């Protein structure tokens, strides 16, 4: 414990267990080739800590995405837990098979899908939806960097409006898909959004997800300095701004019906968020529309949280 509890993100409780071995037996091991300042790396280390805190273990199923490259080249690996790389669109099904055999053999440990936004919002949508509909006992974690990062930065349906990608050279026109809304609509036991800039909330949601049985879906806003064309050192601050400005609301949905907002935005002007990333150009981001969409999205969730509280 330390005085960190007083920082706005409540980073404190993580520091109760700071002596995470970052050697061979942790979830994400050193030597991985993720870019410096990678949000996914932070999320993986936080996942490892949460598992350790919960006294749980996991097997990872990873579709084609940066997370698959993270493993490194055979015969070495950066993952300290049993891991299988699956086809791009098929991760949830593979995980369902793994979970089925775990349960048949009365074994413990999580089966965790660790997938990017492309493998979740796009190509893996059907498979994910089916696993959710069956309420298979999986923890599906999407680290959302809003881009096909591994292929060099193409638009996905998670890419926010205004963002330049190699396939939206003048900025994307369409809104980001409401994946949590879609997942909640399946009535799964637990769905939540997470930000690495709010580690205490992040930790609590991971622990909640680890305790919950059935399909659990977590969406992590995952900064990508390479794709976002931002300073690696700014990674955490960027997603913090996304939360405070209302661009990425932090909330959770229980049983697809009951809502709770976890961090109230202070409505920081999103302009600062956009300015710090060269994927956005001033003339391609409609700030007014962004503010309006953020407000409306928040209001919609707030109404749900008031009418159907957790």
């Amino acid at each position: 414990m330390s005085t960190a509890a007083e920082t706005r993100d409540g980073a404190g409780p993580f520091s109760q267990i700071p002596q995470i071995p970052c050697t061979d037996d942790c979830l994400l091991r050193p030597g991985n080739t993720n870019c410096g300042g990678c949000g996914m790396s932070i999320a993986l280390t936080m996942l490892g800590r949460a598992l350790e805190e919960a006294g749980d273990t996991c097997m990872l199923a990873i579709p084609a995405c940066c997370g698959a490259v993270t493993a490194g080249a055979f015969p070495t690996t950066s993952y300290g837990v049993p891991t299988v790389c699956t086809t791009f669109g098929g991760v949830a099904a593979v995980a369902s098979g793994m979970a089925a055999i775990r349960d048949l053999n009365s074994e413990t440990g999580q089966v965790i899908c660790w997938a990017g936004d492309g493998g979740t919002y796009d190509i893996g949508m059907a498979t994910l939806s089916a696993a959710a509909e069956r309420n298979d006992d999986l923890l599906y974690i999407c680290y959302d960097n809003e881009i096909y990062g591994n292929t060099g930065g193409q638009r996905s349906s998670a890419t926010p409006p205004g963002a330049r990608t190699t396939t939206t050279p003048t900025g994307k026109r369409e809104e980001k898909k409401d994946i949590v809304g879609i997942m909640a609509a399946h009535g799964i036991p637990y769905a939540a959004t997470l930000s690495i800039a709010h580690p205490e909330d992040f930790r609590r949601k991971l622990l909640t997800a680890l305790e919950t049985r059935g399909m659990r879906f977590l969406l992590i806003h995952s900064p990508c300095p390479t794709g976002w064309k931002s300073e690696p050192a700014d990674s955490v601050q960027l997603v913090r701004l996304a939360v405070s400005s209302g661009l990425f609301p932090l909330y959770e949905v229980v049983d697809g019906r009951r809502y709770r907002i976890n961090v109230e935005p202070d409505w920081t002007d999103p302009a600062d968020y956009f300015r710090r990333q060269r994927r956005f150009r001033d003339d391609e981001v409609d700030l007014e529309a962004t503010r309006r969409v953020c407000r409306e999205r928040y209001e919609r969730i707030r109404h749900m949280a008031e009418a159907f509280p957790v």
Partner: protein
Amino acid sequence: MAPVDATVLAREHGLGTRSVPIVNTALAGAVAKLLGLPLEEMLAALEHLGFVGGNVDAARDAYRLVVVEGPVRKASAGNGDTRPRPAGRGPSFLAGAGGDLPGIKTGQWANEQPRRQQYVPPCNHVCPAGNDVQAFLHALAEDRTDDALEILLRTSPFPSTCGRVCPAPCMASCNRITLDGAVNVRELERYAGDRGEVSLVPAERREERVAIVGSGPAGLTAAYHLALYGYGVTIYEAGAELGGLLRTGIPEFRLPGEVLDREVTRILDLGVEAVTGVFINRERLLELARNHDAVLVATGLQELRALRLGLGEEETVSQGIDFLDQVRSGVPIGLDGEDVVVVGGGNTAMDAARTALRLGAASVKVVYRRTRKEMPAIAEEIEEALEEGVHIDFLTQPVAVQRMAQADGDMGEQHLVCRRMELGEPDASGRRRPEEVPGSDFSLPCHRVILALGQSPDLSVFPEGTEVREGHELLGLLETPVYAVGDLATNDGTVAAALGSGRRVAMHIHQTLTGEVVVTGEQTRVRSDVDVWHDEVIRDEALRMHLFERRPLAVGEVIDLDRRHTTFDEIHAGLPSAGEAKRCLSCGVCNECDICVTYCPEGVLKRVGHDLVFDYAYCKGCGICVTECPRNVVFMSHL
């Protein structure tokens, strides 16, 4: 051949990001020069490839900077593929990947590395007592109350006392002010002092004996430290009780006697002897010097400043210090129905005014010749005095006590004639000099005038012309070192300064007698894992204030106004918990919040014991640990 730093060039031209500069065009420029390509040709090639702006500039700079001397040797043959090849067929795919870490030491990617630094927090810098404020707050934040007290006792034997009466310059300099108000350090010091438990063990008893004249905060503090060093210490106090001005000059409702007793007892328990009712004059001082290995004179400021107000001074006008001492020692003083005027703007003025109220005065007015801004009293005490009903007339100078004789022979109401002042140019102290406003006299009804105009030292024990200041040896003809300590030496007037003086002189005596250099307090200890130690004070602009949550200052309960009018009960109840300590920003000092550990994407930043350990073999130099450290203790260092 002159090497060229492509990384620096790329950064200069804004190519890529700080931690991942894109060096391709800079390298292209350097290579073109090495190959002997004309500059124009290279630029044309880059233009053809679509490079513009910073990329072209970086290439041009690199081209310019590379100096080729002598013939260029051809690079030796080899495909440059250094990755290890499995022997023969290598392991079967069925074995799966595992065991060894990837062979890539990602630390090689870094062009900057994080390092630890430490600054001086402003509270520590300004504390006259030399307390390690940051450290004791850190201990309190972790609910280690005993540790907090232990940290305080390293420098000061009076945490419970200072936690009540210190003007707390630490709070005035607190970086948190710009966020949401200073940390309530004073109350937290009281919390630690009142609730912590520490048993002190002095060093092995030494043969040398030290005499201390005066048992005020300076004398007692010197005695405390000297006793801890192992000296035999005897205190000579002219009064009946130990404590000096802490005892006589501060009313119960601010500093209850038993609190002072407890802290004085802690000092005596170290083996300090005290002799009371003994006045040390010059002759006896010489005697002490002959009988001891060192003598400290800590007699403080004994001379009270007076003001000639004419008429009936004996009955009407008294000194605040004396007034407070009489009240405390139980001399019956009835002020029922009286109008009391207190002259002065310091804490004694406030204490006297508030004491007068408690004794039943019909009205209490303070007259002060400057404005509230210049008042030396602790701001909170001024506030409390006003709350209790004390009225303060600013820019007012008393002139004379007058009585208007009535026609019927009655001596009439007694008044204090006052004169309005205005502030002119700043004087030597930096404060604007009050100047009289002609024709502005007015009078206040007044049964009693209490003067609280400050004090000055009584130097009569020393030979004429002795320069009395801290660290200056007195009575130089004797072999025995004799030093002045506390207000006598510094004329500062605050308890905290007296503590600091007492501690410093104790260290100095120890050094003089033994040749041993000891350092007690003064600054936060430099931790073993700090790479760079800065001796400058860190200000709020160097902190990442956006990372801190706003949270209002915690204050303790205050007793009812009724009780404040009629009793001498301590008005502050103290903080119910040490939670306020969590507001400390720990400016420039690592408090093991481990946000950096939490956020390190590689998991290669570890807390081992109390140390931060960076595994540079794998650290990619992304810099998140720097931008996310709220207190600026991690910085990036160029490789």
